[in-house]
């Protein structure tokens, strides 16, 4: 099943054309983001579509997609809450922040997607802001010096539809939008792609 609309396919071709002939596979990351902006994650169909766009095997695409935590292969919420648990953050209470985030978001034990499908909460490696530990990122925008209380507030605010300002820069918007931004393709292109909401978790492969 095609994931990209014809307009987005044309965008994909444009992205591909940025790279020298014979090196089109370098377009793999922007294309994955593009697919992610449509699906809210990257499904097998999405991987296959990227593979066929680049003329490589699906395995090659999945190898890259699986390496980067920004590319989500499992059902994913509208907000991806990444809690850094590396050393600096760990020493300043990241474990508790993570637990609070999971609790507030309503993530079942052993899962990462909240029951309402709104949040994905997962552990992240160093977010490169150790001076502001513990750090939490929502859709890749950092929130500094979080505590159990502030992370819960943050999540509640998101649930109410508010846009709490991150430590730097504007609020990034939902996960699809952010993915679109990272793909370098304006939101307006190919609008009207089918809505897909995340539901039950798929088992890990």
């Amino acid at each position, binding site marked *: 099943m095609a994931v990209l609309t014809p307009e987005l396919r044309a965008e994909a071709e444009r992205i591909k054309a940025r790279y020298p002939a014979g090196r089109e596979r370098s377009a793999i990351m922007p294309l994955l983001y593009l697919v992610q902006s449509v699906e809210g994650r990257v499904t097998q169909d999405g991987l296959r579509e990227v593979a066929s766009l680049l003329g490589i095997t699906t395995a090659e695409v999945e*190898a890259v997609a699986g390496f980067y935590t920004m590319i989500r292969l499992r059902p994913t919420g509208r907000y991806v809450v990444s809690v850094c648990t590396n050393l600096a953050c760990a020493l300043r209470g990241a474990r508790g922040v993570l637990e609070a985030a999971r609790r507030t978001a309503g993530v079942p034990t052993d899962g990462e997607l909240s029951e309402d499908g709104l949040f994905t909460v997962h552990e992240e490696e160093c977010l490169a802001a150790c001076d502001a530990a513990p750090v939490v990122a929502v859709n890749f925008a950092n929130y500094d010096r979080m505590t159990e209380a502030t992370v819960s507030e943050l999540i509640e605010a998101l649930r109410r539809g508010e846009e709490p300002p991150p430590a730097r820069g504007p609020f990034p918007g939902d996960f699809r939008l952010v993915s679109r931004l990272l793909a370098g393709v304006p939101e307006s292109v190919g609008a009207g792609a089918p809505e897909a909401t995340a539901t039950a978790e798929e088992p890990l492969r």
Partner: protein
Amino acid sequence: MSVEPEPVTLTIDGKEVTVPTGTLVIRAAEQLGIEIPRFCDHPFLDPVGACRQCYVEIEGQRKLFTACTTEVAAGMVVHTQNTSELAHEGQVANLEFLLINHPLDCPICDRGGECPLQDQTMAFGPGESRYIEPKRVYRKPIPLSPLVLLDRERCVLCARCTRFCDQISGDRFIEMFARGAGQQVAIAAGEDFRSPFSGNTIQICPVGALTASTYRFVARPFDVHVADGICGHCSAGCNVRVDVRRGEVVRVLARDNAEVNDAWICDKGRFAFRAADGPGRVTTPLIRERGLEPASFDEVLGRVAEWSRGARVAFLTGGRLADEDAFALSKLARVAFGTNDLDHRRAFHGGLAEELEAASALRVTYRDVERAGAILVVGLDAEQEVPILHLRIRKAARRGARVFVVHSRETRLSDVAEHLLCRPGQEGAVLERLIEGGAAGSDEERVARALRTAEGAVVLAGSLLAEHPLATDVALRLSRRLGAGFALVPRRAGDRGALRAGVHPALLPGGRRLAVASERAEVEAVWGELRSSEPGRNGREILEACARREIDVLFLVGVDPLRDVPDAALARRALENVPVKVVQSLELGELEPYADAFLPAAALHEREGHLTTWEGRSQRTRPVRAPAGLSRPDWEIFAGLAEAVGAPLGFGSVEELREEMEALLAPREVSERPTAWVGAGVPQWLDEVTLFTYPLLVDEGRLSEGASELKAALEEPAFVEVHPEDAERLHLADGGWARVRTGAGEATLPVRVSSRVAQGSVFVPFNQPGLEANRLLSGRFTAAATLEAVPGGGEGARGGEGIAGPEAKT
């Protein structure tokens, strides 16, 4: 071509060694006989430094270095585990790490007893682990294909398998998925490991993570007999090791030979090893009385001799004979029976090129291909026909060679080569334009220039060229014009040996022309006077003569004309009309109702002998077991028959036979005469649609009998491949059905619409399940055809097993 790199001198464990710049420390150590433990390092793969096992200490450096990724430097002083406590400790620690998640299930692991991890843990490792936590657990094994099984718990993430697929075969179906502790070798959901080279990943996996479905729980290294053999499936001549357990072949492995197959073999060579142990094998001589009845060899040979005395006798052979067999047959036919009606060929090149090959006057080797600056492949689908040559062409491309393919169908070289697609039979015309330099601004002009300017070009001509009587010589001529090497690449393992031996109506051993007195005399000096100097009938003419009852006794040696000859109707008529048919083979198969006598031949791994590669390299193959039952090497049967007719061949042992071969088969210089090709433009014809066919690697061929896993992995049911524009014109849809009609017959086949195939031509594989394509042919591997759409498949269709293009997966 390139300048030799500067030599560098360094010291390893106190010993000096001088190696070229760029050499890796691990290789330099090997030259001194110093073994550094390793898992990911492989001499034929690019270094990656993934396993961290090969730590060495380098004086003046603060940290340990991985020997497999570190290049030598002048004056470098290296200490391996032998002279450095630090390096030793590093290696021990690393082994402990590698084993943390390793299941240590050696007792049930197929690798047990020949496992580098086991061996190196014993040799260099800690012996004991401090790890007491639960280990990572995965479901095991998971099939990557019907041939290759993956046990992720055992994997040490060395990336040998994935690098092989990336760098060597180019079939990038398996990859490293995920990261960290969860990293694993994997295949994408819904994709198959559809590579004809997949088995190599099993062999180079340094642990038991990749195992072969054919070898699961079958044997341990200490309960097999092994022998060094040569693969008999194609003319690549791969060096193999054959493992036999309790008399049965259970495994074939590649042997390293950098001159031939590097460290690789194809999946057919590796997994199609059961044919000689199959239910169809007949190992007793048979003679037709009321039915075919067992008899002694002497009795059958006596009867055959009786039938043949004074009769008109002809010999057809297949492609599996060893060089010795071919030579003995060439002598038998000419000396004992006085006939020149003998042929081994399926495609008739004729011309000068063939003669030069027969004389061993053309010398292109794997190394020449590997080092070539440009390679032109014509009428050859190397991946399917001579797979290891395909890998060598890819290797050349990786080293910078420009590769061009003139063919009617895009081959799997497409990611490294430029294809000039043309209709079958028109290759000669394309080549001619390349000789002329190509029209201004055309692709051909560009290709011609690239070939002209390349350093060390090579032209490789395949059997599809034989479809045009002049094309092969045009290819030869082009190579001469370019100053390029030229090789006529036959498909079958015995083809080159048979051509050299003179299993040919017009050529005697060493390519000496029968009709030329001086050349004939050289053979007569060894064989005595030959009865006839008239060239005999070629394979096709022999069958025609049989059909007209102009031949009395037809010997079928390792050949089944009903299946092998591109004219099934003619084959049948021939068998029905020739009075006596003598079958010499491993089995009777469909020839059972026709055979008047059967002589059981030994399989390749049951006898001593040589096979000659497409390059002309003769390689020795050794037996791993005795001939089954009463079967004998073909040459011995020929010798016995010669005795029975009272004209002994004069050799009682392989040694004597080889002495005579050496005398007659030494490479000869052949003065190059102008060929039939006159440069006036090779004639062309244009059918509405030209059907063409050649055998795919994994098909219904008899040598692949019993290879069920191989077939499940790689065999495709018959199909017809049509260019999109032709499909539109003929109203054919991808996945639909077409009735294909030729002058010889018709078949209903699933349609694949693909721009891989040249416009105006359609491809059907020669012998896939569902179609013996020779029913559509009248002597050539091409035919004029018409196609019409058949709604829903029609009567000719086979019951709907998954017949669909590979694209049709969801």
